């Protein structure tokens, strides 16, 4: 057997093989042994995620424990950009677009034929329908956070997406709790609604110290949902999960921190009264041909709001899952502004309801007393400032009762709502020195006008109490006595919200305490334990002698028994109140008169008031004609109920 000489090239070949294999082994060694821990780290980062567990949002009850808001589960479809493989992105987007009926690219539409779903909606000028591709692009800033594509997805679509999950990597169907507002338009101004965090405020929410807000969260946007956002939202839980490449949770790792459900709210509102008040107001508005009105009812001994109605109203359920373009536009463009709570936000001239403040001021300042008689001739003439001797330049001031009331005391003046009595009281006349603007303004502020009441709802306006400086700054004119006259009867520059005048009237009713109106009675935890009990809050004790307020009350009682508010003279319960008909700029009627808002503030029963009311009907004409019957109906309903 002859051994062939080994080919040197083959030996070289062998060497090369050994070299290459060693190279591979070396590199593998580097990866596995030297860098092993680091790689293990990265493998873990791939598959472990910290996710938050949503907390159930608190629900809301009325004072009797009736449910006003509940959470119902709904489906959302979201996508985690990091889990979407680039080579399949296109097909996933197309499939989702067809399943969810969403556009692939964003659309700028001013006309849409079908309702759209958009998480970003409030405050938009033009309608914007985000496309799936753009949402994903946006989401790449935080590629491991799910981007919500659609809320309130129909069941069948959600199930279909779940079935196709192998073909839709990175896509998740999650259950989120949606709010169901049981009362709908009945309570929408009080309760408000939730929605995605508004972009302008995103920073303030997300960067709050200790907050667990995430970009996709729903937060309260208005109403009690907003003012009690912190109590309602609870605290999210957390868990570590292991996920696969498509982002699907495979298992939970370690123990999870459970979420803490939000607190529940018990409102001060009485649902039955709220219904009754809404119906009564609507009836009164229709009878008066008005499109807007307010009723607020409160407990004058505590400041609790028993009912709060602002019409027209809106269905806050529309905002759940994203409001449609048509719906939102309709609400925005309605000239009577259904989205606005006129009870807190509407600033109007008060008309004669202001007289109760004037009366209290006059009595306390000692300008008048119970027996003081002032004459109402029907018209008085205020001499011209710079030519007091020239009668042709004098300005007439009329009483609404043209013939004149004759001689009146303060109780009668209130009961009959005499204008001239109050002109003279406030601005003085001839030898009779009146209160003067500063004092009148001072008392107005005492009674809470000109500042927000601090009710636990957003959007409250503070009204306007004019002053000499104010007039000079705003109109470039000096304050004249005529202005004081106007203010005395709640006209001119003075403005207030229905809530403010109610609160003032309640302070009269309860003997001199101005309370902060409250709409949330208690905060309770999920098991019903009280977390924050009700506590009435005093804004101030009015520095007015009790007998003076008693006199004003007498006047208000008289108004109902034989005065302008006689329609509220209910059998079985002693009602007291004050009417008002406030002129405002508008088209004059056939007799050349300006249109008026109808007002009526009232409380009952006189001996120990339980309920104070304000009724306001925009453009409703005479308070005594249109507003008083509304109050009468509401009070009748209230006391019938309580007598059961």
């Amino acid at each position, binding site marked *: 057997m*002859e051994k062939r000489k080994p080919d040197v090239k083959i030996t070289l070949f062998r060497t090369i093989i050994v070299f290459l294999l060693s190279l*591979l082994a070396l*590199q593998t060694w580097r*990866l*596995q042994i030297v860098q092993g821990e*680091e790689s293990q780290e990265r*493998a873990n980062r791939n598959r472990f995620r910290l996710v938050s567990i949503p907390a159930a949002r608190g629900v809301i009850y009325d004072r009797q424990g009736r449910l006003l808001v509940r959470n119902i589960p709904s489906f959302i479809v979201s996508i985690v950009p990091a889990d979407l493989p*680039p080579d399949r992105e296109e097909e996933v987007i197309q499939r989702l677009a067809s399943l969810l009926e969403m556009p692939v690219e964003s659309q700028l539409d001013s006309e849409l034929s079908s309702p759209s779903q958009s998480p970003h909606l409030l405050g938009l000028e033009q309608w914007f329908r985000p496309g799936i591709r753009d949402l994903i692009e946006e989401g790449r800033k935080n590629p491991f956070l799910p981007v919500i594509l659609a809320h309130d997805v129909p069941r069948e679509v959600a199930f279909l997406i779940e079935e196709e999950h192998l073909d839709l990597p990175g896509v998740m169907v999650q259950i989120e709790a949606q709010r169901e507002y049981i009362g709908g338009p009945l309570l929408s101004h009080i309760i408000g609604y939730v929605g995605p965090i508004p972009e302008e405020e995103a920073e303030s929410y997300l960067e709050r110290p200790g907050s667990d807000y995430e970009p996709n969260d729903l937060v309260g946007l208005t109403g009690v949902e907003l003012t009690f956002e912190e109590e309602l939202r609870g605290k999210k839980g957390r868990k570590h999960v292991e996920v696969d490449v498509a982002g699907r949770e495979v298992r939970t790792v370690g123990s999870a921190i459970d979420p803490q459900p939000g607190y529940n709210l018990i409102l001060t509102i009485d649902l039955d009264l709220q219904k009754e008040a809404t119906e009564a107001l609507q009836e009164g508005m229709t009878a008066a041909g008005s499109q807007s009105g307010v009723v607020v009812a409160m407990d004058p001994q505590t400041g609790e709001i028993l009912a709060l109605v602002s019409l027209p109203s809106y269905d806050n359920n529309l905002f759940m899952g994203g409001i449609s373009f048509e719906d939102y536009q309709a609400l925005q463009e309605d000239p009577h502004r259904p989205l606005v709570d006129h009870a807190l936000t509407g600033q109007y001239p008060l008309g004669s309801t202001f007289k109760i403040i004037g009366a209290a001021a006059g009595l306390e300042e000692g300008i008048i007393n119970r027996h003081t008689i002032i004459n109402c001739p029907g018209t008085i003439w205020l001499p011209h400032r710079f030519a007091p001797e020239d009668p042709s330049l004098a300005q007439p001031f009329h009483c609404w009762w043209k013939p004149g009331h004759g001689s009146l005391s303060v109780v009668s003046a209130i009961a009959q709502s005499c204008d001239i009595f109050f002109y003279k009281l406030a601005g003085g006349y001839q030898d009779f020195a009146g209160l003067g603007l500063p004092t009148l303004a001072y008392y107005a502020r005492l009674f809470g006008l000109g500042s927000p009441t601090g009710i636990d709802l957003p959007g409250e306006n503070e009204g306007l109490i004019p002053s000499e400086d104010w007039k000079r700054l705003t109109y470039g004119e000096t304050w004249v006595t005529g202005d004081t006259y106007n203010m005395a009867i709640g006209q001119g520059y003075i403005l207030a919200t229905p809530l403010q005048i109610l609160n003032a009237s309640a302070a009269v009713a309860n003997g001199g305490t101005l309370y902060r109106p409250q709409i949330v009675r208690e905060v309770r935890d999920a098991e019903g334990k009280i977390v924050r009990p009700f506590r009435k809050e005093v804004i101030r004790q009015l520095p007015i002698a009790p007998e003076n307020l008693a006199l004003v009350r007498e006047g208000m009682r008289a108004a109902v028994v034989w005065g302008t508010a006689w329609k509220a003279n209910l059998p079985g319960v002693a009602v007291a109140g004050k009417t008002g008909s406030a002129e405002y700029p508008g088209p004059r009627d056939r007799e050349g008169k300006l249109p008026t808002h109808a007002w009526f503030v009232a409380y009952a029963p006189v001996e120990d008031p339980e309920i104070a009311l304000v009724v306001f009907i925009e453009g409703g004409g005479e308070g005594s004609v249109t507003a008083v019957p509304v109050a009468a109906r509401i009070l009748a309903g209230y006391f019938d109920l309580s007598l059961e």
Partner: protein
Amino acid sequence: MRRATQHFDFLLLGATLLLILYSVTMIYSATYLSGERGQNLWDTLFVRQAIHALVGIGLLFLVARIDYQYLELLHRPLYILVILSLLLVFVVGHGSFGAQRWLDFNIFTFQPSELAKLIVIITLAKYLADRGPEVKRFPYLLLSLVIVAIPMLLIYLQPALGTALILAVVWLAMVLVAGARLRHLTILALLGVLCAPLIWLSLEDYMRERVMVFLNPQQDPLGAGYNMRQALIAVGSGGWIGQGFGSGSQNQLHFLRVRHTDYIFSVLGEELGFVGVLILLLLLGTLLFRILRAADLARDDFGKLIACGVATVIGFQAFVNIGMNIGLIPAVGTSLPFMSYGGSGLITLLLAEGVVQSILIRHRKLEFQ
């Protein structure tokens, strides 16, 4: 027959069988265990791999019995057949991942480029063996290149850059063994460098992307660099003894993609660790050395060159694939011989081994004549 059995290389066969076993087990983990199950057992990948292996081994024994010198007679028709089937791929071929590489015959799919490797080796070996020392002359060297270049071009156009590259390296190894002059080879290399920009431009976008990503893996972690990153994480997290069979998170949670083909090494690395890798390298090394032994013992140049060609194919392809998995080489999409799932590839390899066994069995004939 006894003679045949005496010279049959059982060590080679043994190493091959162990590799196949390794392969079926890892494919099982990469597919079946990680949730990719077919509708029935025949549909599952690891079973199909096993079946292909059985068929291949049967063919191996068959081919080993036949004298490899018959191939000398058949080399021309075989070459033409290969060219034709490569052309056919363009006409009726099936695509995957943007390339047309398969012919679908309903019962089985056939990848001509795999068989082409073997046929080119045989044809080239015949040519070089016939020309003998003349290969030292440039024109003959060039002609040998042309023999390889035609199928190489057709394969490159599929596109299958990896396989084309392997053919080039096979040619290089074989002509070197045959005795080509380094001088000539250097000239050709220079020409190749000149052509490089042209080749770069003609590369598909995704290929260029892969090269760029190789140079800087952090560049695009979710895009083209994804596979490489995941492979590195997978291999690296294997440590000494791995995460355990069926327990590698990169594998089981599907962070690794194409786990049963291009990245099967990463599955092995993650689950069986450095020890598992060493075993693989050992098996491959044994295989290659036994094939080179056949080259040494071959009774003619034809056999020697065939064996060298086969060793080159297996060795270089393995090096490229493993290199891809551990970050030494950009992703060029070649599979790991014996380990990756693939019927055509496996059967071609076993056929090639059969030829090598045939060379071994007949190496003493000369002496007895």
